[in-house]
């Protein structure tokens, strides 16, 4: 339980020359579920994209160590192959590329990376059908173009399906709850809960406490103006629900945070 999966120290980053992250510290160990909460623009989505290696963000200082290696030296593709998975807030629609092909190519890329033999279409179909159970998705989704014409909830379920297939060491869920009705939220959350085990870890990025009714984090962090300003247990989320984020402005103004 004490293996450190991700360790972020004093991370600073810019987007378009504007500082967005101003010194983030975070440590995630195997078997843990962390949640980062905060207002829009606090930098929480930026943090998730930086961990995944989005080329748009420029890291200006600090470090990210993933499983003992310097993550910042690696390209997005390599990070993914090493077990970092980002469930997108807005999954992209890709016309003409079937969901099934996309999943199979991604899965085979991982097998290849692990030095294993790639699997053929037939074996893959058997494999993916079992995974569909995790998010209660209809097999008809496999034949459709990737995310094209999917509802918001279907897109998010499709993200969890990909995660179930790729079995990452670190799953980052960027506002997975946004745009979901209660039923979809329950299915998505149950999917994540099924995937959690002592060897992997999850980082939930969310705006609302609602998600945490379904997925229970051991650690909750509050992000404000590019920093994690408060950390605690799951009760912190409830506290935030009560007080909102406004108290942070006062704290910062008072130089407390």
């Amino acid at each position, binding site marked *: 339980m004490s293996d450190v999966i991700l360790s972020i120290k004093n991370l600073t980053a810019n*987007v*378009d020359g504007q500082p967005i992250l101003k010194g983030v510290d975070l440590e995630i160990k195997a078997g843990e579920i962390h949640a980062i909460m905060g207002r829009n623009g606090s930098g929480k989505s930026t943090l998730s994209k930086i961990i*995944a*290696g*989005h*080329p*748009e963000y420029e890291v200006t200082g600090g470090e990210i160590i993933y499983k003992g290696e310097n993550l910042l030296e690696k*390209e*997005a*593709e390599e*990070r*993914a*192959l090493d077990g970092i*998975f*980002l469930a*997108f807030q807005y*999954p*992209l629609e*890709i*016309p*003409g*590329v079937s969901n099934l*092909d*996309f999943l199979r*190519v*991604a899965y085979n*890329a*991982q097998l290849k*990376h692990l030095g294993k033999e790639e699997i053929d279409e037939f074996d893959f179909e058997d494999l993916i059908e079992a995974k569909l159970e995790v998010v209660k998705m209809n097999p008809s989704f496999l034949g459709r*173009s990737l995310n094209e014409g999917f509802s918001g909830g279907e897109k998010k379920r499709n993200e969890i399906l*990909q995660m179930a297939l*790729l079995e990452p060491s670190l799953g980052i869920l960027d506002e997975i709850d946004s745009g979901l009705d209660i039923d979809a939220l329950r299915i998505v959350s149950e999917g994540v809960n099924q995937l959690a085990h002592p060897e992997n870890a999850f980082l939930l990025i969310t705006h609302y406490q609602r998600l945490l009714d379904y997925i229970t984090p051991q650690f909750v962090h509050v992000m404000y103006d590019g920093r994690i300003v408060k950390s605690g247990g799951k009760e912190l989320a409830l506290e935030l629900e009560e007080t909102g984020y406004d108290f942070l402005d006062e704290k910062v103004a008072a130089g407390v945070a």
Partner: protein
Amino acid sequence: MSATVKTLVNQPYKYGFVTDIETDSIPRGLSEDVVRLISAKKNEPEFMLEFRLKAYRHWLKMTEPEWAHVNYPAIDYQNIVYYSAPTKETKKVESLDDIDPALLETFEKLGIPLSEQKRLSNVAVDAIFDSVSIATTFKKDLAKHGVIFCSISEALQDHPELIQKYLGTVVPTADNFFAALNAAVFSDGSFVFIPKGVKCPMELSTYFRINNGDTGQFERTLIVAEEGASVSYLEGCTAPMFDTNQLHAAVVELVALDNADIKYSTVQNWFAGDENGKGGIYNFVTKRGLCKGVNSKISWTQVETGSAITWKYPSCVLLGDNSVGEFYSIALTNNMQQADTGTKMIHIGKNTRSTIISKGISAGKSKNSYRGLVKMNPKADGARNYSQCDSMLLGDTAEANTFPYIQVDNQNAKVEHEASTAKIGEEQLFYFAQRGISEEDAISMLVSGFCKDVLSELPMEFAAEADKLLSLKLEGAVG
């Protein structure tokens, strides 16, 4: 940030080699004497010489078209060699043993083996090298079905009456500048004749190879499908890499009589020039099909990946009632390539229908324009057209344009046009990368996905190859 799309490093063009072979070439330049000389070299019947001279005299009075959205320095028509043939192939070959082994080797290297043992099993091939046809496979087998498939030079000797009847009936000699030039100096090409009621038992294909650096290639293809006949035909093309530009001005005419069906597919991979735009083929081609009979159908499918400049509008004249015209196109441009391509659907008969699906992909600093005309003539009652023109941009420096021309002179005719532009950007590539998929695989999946509707129209044997060609052409296009 969004400008991280870097300069393109292309996969080397693997067909860029030159075959060292002795040729019979005439001096550079064009004159009435040159036209007569070409005709004499080919021992043509008198009507053919007349056809050529008429075209040449017209051409002298014409000017080069300038309306296309392409730029290139003026072509010096007196600096082109209008006829070049491997010396040994000037006499009629009876068997493959008579062919220079260097030529057989060339075609084998291009993936078009001609020998009995190695040839493609279900595709008959006419192999054209510079100005002449080298060999046509399966000719005898096809003859058993009454199908004529041979070079147009041979057809002029063996079936002059058919050539005289159909040549120039779809693309008249004075149709346009390049078509007139072609009519005056064309040296070879393929002839296909499918008699009444015959479904051609195999795919027919012509493979064009430009070898000589100073030679223009002016081939002429004529395909006639009589009543109830049907045929599927494919052309492929490559050329060596030269620093200079070579002119390719072909004319293709298709004639479909009552209930006939012609499917014409092209996979064009001429040398496109290097990444700085040096060299490459100028592909100025006139292709037109005439749906002469009732219920006839002509379908064009093209995958255009090569050429420095493409100027090409495979068209259908829908004369017969209920006739159908189709145009499925993928035009991919990279580096400094320029393409101005599309189609013309001319509806004359009643209840004629046409479909246009065009997919343009532009990368690098290339320019890719779709230009299409849909014309509904006054008598085209109940005619319908559906057009869909999609463009995909890779990077920030490529250009995509759509120029649709619609002219409707019949109130009962219906025209639908849809267009879209998409961009392969960082976000899409990041999505794929985040799933561990390499950039090359991502681009190739995105592009084949974009082109799916058109690739599915190609004959099976070639669809996979064309798909592969597309990814090859884009390797390293975004970095």
